[in-house]
Every structure is written in C-alpha cells, then in structure tokens.
C-alpha cells in the first residue's frame, strides 16, 4: 500500500487530494505542523509527502529542505502559488514531483498520483526495501 503524509494546518485544503488517494487505495497519515511531520518521517516509511503552502513559520518549499536532510528518498509535492519561473527557482535541487495549486482539485490530485506511480515503478527495488 502506498503511504502518503499530508502536511497542512488545515485538512480541508487537502479534501480532494485525500479523496483521490483513498480512491486508489492509498494510506494517509496527517501532520499539522513541521515538527510533527519530521517526527513522523523519522519513524515511518512514507512514499509521498505533500506539503501545504504555509506551515507555521515556513513555506512548504522550505519544509522540504528539512525533509531531504531526514530522508532524501521520500518523494514530495508542494502547494505553491508562485509563478512557474519563481517556483522553479525556489524548488531547485529539491526534486519535487510537481507544483500544486492551493486547495488542489481532483484532476490535479490524479496527475500527482499518476506521477508518483511512474516514479515508484522506476524504483521498485528501493520500494521493497522501504515498504512496511
């Protein structure tokens, strides 16, 4: 089962995303804060982390700089209202799957799931090692 960690102080902003994940049989863990998310990532194996645009005193993109220090293997996607160019500049080197609009809808969530599946298909050995 694919394990997703959704990081947001407002779960309603990921309503459509969580429905899309559940429709595909995915498992969801929630974190309301950066601290809770990083604690979870140090304890559990996660296939995808999705971060909301603002997480307390940092942006979702800044949060991912901390995530890769804890677990660079985990895949990520961030909500960001930056322009395409500004997002590219800000996310450089973070290796994120895609930029999500605030309150990502069903179609966008489906694209994210499809992108995640493509990456997971290309990394089957590592998935076996990290799957619970």
């Amino acid at each position: 089962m694919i394990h997703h960690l959704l990081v947001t102080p407002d779960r309603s902003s990921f309503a459509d995303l969580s429905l899309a994940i559940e429709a595909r049989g995915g498992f969801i863990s929630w974190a309301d804060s950066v601290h809770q998310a990083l604690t979870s990532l140090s304890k559990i194996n996660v296939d995808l982390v999705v971060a909301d645009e603002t997480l307390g005193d940092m942006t979702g993109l800044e949060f991912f700089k901390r995530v890769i220090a804890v677990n660079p293997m985990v895949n990520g996607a961030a909500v960001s209202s930056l322009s395409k160019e500004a997002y590219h500049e800000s996310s450089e080197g973070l290796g994120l799957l895609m930029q999500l609009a605030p309150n990502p809808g069903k179609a966008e969530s489906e694209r994210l799931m499809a992108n995640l599946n493509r990456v997971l298909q290309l990394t089957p050995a590592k998935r076996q090692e990290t799957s619970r």
Partner: protein
Amino acid sequence: MENGRIAIPSMEAGGLDGKRSGHFGHCDTFTLVDVKDGAVDKVSTLANQEHIQGGCMVPVNLLADNQVNALVVGGIGMRPLMGFRQAGIEVYHDDQRQDIRPVVEDLISGRLAMIADDQVCGGGNQPSEREEIT
C-alpha cells in the same frame, strides 16, 4: 581510489574515450570504470533509465544496484546528493572538463575533490550552465 567502481554520466555510447554529460539525470549512459589496485581494470556502460520530474532517486537506485562507489558530476541538486550519500556513493565534482578519461584518472589518483554542500544547485546557489538540476 585503490579499488571500486566509478560512474561517469556520459553522452551517447560513453566509454573511457567518450564525453561526459553535464546532466546526470538525462545522460544517455553511465560509463562504469572498475578500479583495481589503483588502476583501471575494466570499463563498461550502463544505460540510463527514463528521467521524469521528481525522479531523483531513479539514478541513485540504478547506480547503487550496480555496485557503484563513486560518481563524478558537473552539478547536482541537494536531494539527489543526499540520496547518493545515503546509498554510500561518494559524489565528486568537476564542472570544467568534458572528456571522461582525465576525470577518471584524477579521481583514481586522488586529485578530484568531492562536491561540497555549497556547490549544489538551488538553495540560493547559482548553478553554472553545465550544472544539473534534478
């Protein structure tokens, strides 16, 4: 390096007399150089896999699965760098030379430096034209 396997992101068919690729995620092939007793023992090539956005760990797993010990890049993002380090693959840096052979010779003789955290792409650092963002 006395013993081990070096991977060089390469253009087209690769090989010791081939050209390096400045973009390891998008490179055509990896030239693999086996080093034994401080000398080149064997050279082979490994086809790269499909590169997709966010697929930084694909080459990390590919090279780890093929027993690579060291990689030479022109540039790299922080996530794949951390991934290579976690996989036990040392990442060396040379953003000047396109020929594979002199870079391999320098790595074997200890004249090539490992990439530093402040040389990665992103995080406020300015990548050169040859550097790679994955």
